């Protein structure tokens, strides 16, 4: 892709190769959930970036939503038993 070649040309002393970028792209692709990218081995770099952005945005929204729910729970329930249950489940 022409954009990748231009990036490797202007990035420092030209030491960053397309292979390195490919490698990092595949690592990023491995982090993303399979449902977003399918099981294809070769997904375009643009698709990986797009899905990564979408995934980060959805995770931010989930964080907001879970914070709201935790805030409600904090005021109504006795958290110590919930905390004990969580710690137990994580340590086992």
């Amino acid at each position: 892709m022409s954009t990748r070649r231009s990036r490797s040309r202007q990035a420092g002393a030209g030491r960053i190769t397309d292979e390195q970028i490919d490698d990092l792209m595949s690592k990023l692709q491995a982090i993303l959930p399979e449902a977003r990218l399918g099981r294809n081995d070769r997904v375009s770099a643009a698709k990986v970036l797009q899905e990564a952005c979408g995934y980060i945005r959805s995770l931010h929204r989930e964080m907001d939503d879970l914070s709201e729910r935790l805030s409600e729970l904090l005021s109504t329930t006795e958290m110590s038993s919930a905390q004990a249950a969580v710690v137990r489940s994580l340590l086992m």
Partner: protein
Amino acid sequence: MYRRSFKDTRSSLGSPNPNFSKPMVALRFLRALSLVRRSGLGACSPSYRARGIRRAAYACMAASAGPRRAWSRALLRKIRRRPGRGLRRPRAVIWRHRPVGGGDRLEVALRRLVPGGGCMEYCRLLEEAADYVKCLAMQVRLMQTIVDSASHV
């Protein structure tokens, strides 16, 4: 919810931070929640408390990832720079320095989403993004676990 093995993602990104293990993050966050509860925020509006919890979640996540990562340092800087406290320093000029070449729309979008992604090299951005996504997903899973346990008690 996204099904993924935590072990697989952790081993794919070089040496993991020893502090960043699931029980440690959980304990840190639970302690933060206790502090939020005891600090008298219970009397405030739910949305104010929710913002405090969200800030605690991001702070725990960044603290557990450690200072090795640019995103965790940038996130902690942003959180600790609370608005309205004393004189506001002018925003660091570093945020204005866009990389040479500009990059395409997707790269710019990713730079905005990853903390500290404004002016790092493209390769670094991809690395940081992968680590950030991994930690975010784990924090979300942790909070979901807490909500589920609290709801079923």
